[in-house]
């Protein structure tokens, strides 16, 4: 129905505002951990406004232009497919029977677009970053898929809506407590997805300048910025749906996603950085082994 | 240290001995033909294993360049400067890269800034600091840096330059004292 499109736009705009605010809060918390005052929590909005109106005069070919769009599309796709509030007309989004599979596809799609564009820009730093990024993606996809497929087998569904409704009825029905080992694997994989600090070798600030977007400027960068914020919110909502029992009203959704966000920020604030091969080795040992415990338990049952 | 200098005097001809401004600094002037022999003797027999610096001085009045080789002994913690004089009209000398390989960079620098040619140094003609330099070597004393700087880079024609800043400051402090 046509008003679904309006609802979708509303979700995207709201998600962007929330994502930028979360980014600002994370900058503030990191600054306080350093003993600084830090920027205002609205700094990311200001950065975005500035970037939109910067001029650009560089060209590196077609793929260079398309990559920020891929990133943006990946972000919007993830955000629009996960149900934020179940059984709500607006906020259940475009959730349907097989949405989990499409979400998994979109999550890889954004990263691949980014890698293609970065490699096309011709800068050695941004060509170095995709090799690291794809290696790390190969690392975290394994524990993430183990945890997601484990849940899908356990509840016998690939629909996020069904997964959420299966977790209703008290805090102990959440997958976090029903399948704790799968949850640990999933949350460790999430740290890799956010390129949070132990696994930040892709962007690697101070080491390879700013990583993939080294050659991107002005409007392109603002698209990437937007895409990343939407992607971030989408993934917080996805993990809320998968492990924390979804949300029945908007306030609950805010509280739960903010809790997951704080988990990421505090881990980011205190850890140094793994090298690529160390990160991949870490992902393929501890979270995989931990996740397999529950995986096997589900199969035996 | 005196013993070392005495031993050196027995073997080589020391033109002049000087005491440095520090306790552990001595300066010896030797003949330029015997420099390699002196350096290798000091390096192999007297523990002066470290070449700290090679530097150059332009004695334009005597029409000479002075090359100084500053050595350091880790065991005795003393500096020794061996200096030689070469002709300013024909600034040529032999490299000491066979004794101290790190002298390559110092000699390259001296070649660029003073124009002294070190025979046997393979990289001395590469650019060290200056790129595309077309004047005489800039550290020679007959090169007028102020004139070159004014011609090349200009100067700001501002009121600040014409005003007497010392007078302004003294006026200000007088006024401040009166208060």
């Amino acid at each position: 129905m046509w008003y679904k499109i309006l609802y979708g736009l509303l979700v995207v705009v709201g998600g962007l505002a929330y994502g930028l605010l979360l980014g600002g809060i994370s900058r503030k918390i990191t600054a306080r951990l350093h003993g600084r005052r830090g920027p205002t929590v609205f700094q990311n909005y200001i950065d975005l406004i500035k970037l939109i109106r910067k001029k650009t005069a560089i060209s590196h070919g077609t793929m260079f232009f398309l990559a920020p769009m891929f990133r943006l599309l990946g972000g919007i796709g993830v955000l629009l497919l996960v149900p934020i509030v179940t059984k709500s007309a607006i906020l259940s989004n475009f959730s349907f029977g097989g949405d989990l599979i499409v979400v998994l596809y979109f999550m890889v799609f954004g990263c691949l677009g980014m890698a293609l564009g970065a490699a096309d820009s011709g800068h050695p730093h941004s060509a170095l970053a995709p090799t690291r990024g794809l290696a790390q993606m190969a690392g975290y996809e394994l524990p993430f898929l183990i945890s997601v497929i484990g849940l899908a087998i356990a509840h016998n569904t690939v629909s996020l809506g069904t997964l959420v409704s299966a977790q209703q009825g008290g805090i102990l029905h959440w997958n976090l407590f029903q399948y704790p080992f799968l949850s640990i694997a999933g949350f460790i994989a999430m740290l890799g997805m956010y390129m949070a600090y132990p696994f930040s070798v892709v962007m690697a600030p101070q080491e390879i300048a700013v990583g993939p977007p080294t050659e991107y400027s002005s409007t392109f960068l603002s698209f990437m910025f937007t895409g990343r914020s939407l992607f971030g919110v989408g993934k917080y909502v996805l993990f809320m749906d998968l492990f924390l029992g979804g949300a029945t009203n908007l306030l609950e959704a805010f509280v739960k996603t903010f809790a997951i966000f704080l988990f990421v920020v505090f881990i980011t604030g205190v850890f140094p950085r793994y090298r690529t091969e160390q990160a991949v080795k870490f992902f393929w040992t501890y979270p995989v082994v931990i996740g397999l415990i529950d995986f096997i338990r589900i199969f035996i049952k | 240290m005196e013993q070392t200098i005495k031993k050196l005097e027995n073997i080589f001809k020391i033109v002049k001995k000087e005491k440095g401004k520090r306790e552990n600094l001595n300066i010896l002037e030797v003949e330029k033909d015997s420099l390699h022999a002196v350096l290798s003797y000091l390096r192999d027999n007297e523990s002066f294993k470290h070449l700290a610096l090679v530097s150059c001085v332009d004695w334009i009045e005597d029409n000479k360049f002075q090359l100084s080789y500053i050595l350091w002994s880790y065991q005795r913690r003393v500096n020794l400067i061996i200096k030689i004089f070469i002709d300013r009209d024909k600034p040529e000398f032999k490299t000491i890269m066979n004794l101290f390989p790190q002298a390559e960079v110092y000699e390259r620098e001296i070649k660029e800034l003073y124009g002294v040619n070190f025979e046997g140094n393979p990289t001395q003609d590469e650019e060290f600091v200056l790129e595309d330099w077309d004047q005489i070597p800039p550290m020679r004393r007959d090169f007028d840096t102020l004139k070159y700087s004014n011609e090349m880079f200009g100067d700001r024609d501002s009121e600040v330059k014409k005003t007497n800043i010392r007078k302004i400051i003294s006026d200000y402090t007088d006024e401040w004292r009166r208060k």
Partner: protein
Amino acid sequence: MKDNKYFLDDRPEKISYSEVWQKFFNWARAKSLWVVAYGTGCGSIEIPPMVTSRFDAERFGVSNVGTPRQADVLIISGYLAVKTLKRVIRVYEQMQSPKYVVGLGACTVNGGMYYDSYNTVNLVDQYVPIDVFVAGCMPRPEAILAGFAQLMKKIKEGRADGWKQYLDNLDKYRKNQEKVIKNWKIPNYNW
């Protein structure tokens, strides 16, 4: 724009903005200044204390980026040798408009203590347009922050238009640059 060219060899077009939203965007520009991390002289040692815990420039929206493409501000930190001037010009031209330049120290004003040096550029604003000078030898981080406050004020009032002047008077700047850089090997226009 042409595809598959790493340098645009064409002369850049002059940029004109519509005036309607200018005030709002100038406010955003002033509040979010990204500085390219490129130290040219001794003054770059004053930048790390400025951005870290002691003086914390990030509370004014000033933060570091590693690449000139994303940067808004280029800090010329101290004396500028001819060799470095070439790199500064390239970095400046790779930055995207609007862009601002801050000159730190007496050396960028008139050569400072190197006024008679054979290798130090005396008047930096002949080669790249400079929006704010910060005097001192070297200026302390407080002084640099004061300079940034001045720059923000200029941007908000719309007076920080050095990048426009650079595009308008490109021939004059190129003539000055080519006088000092004798062997011009870099591409003519590299934006």
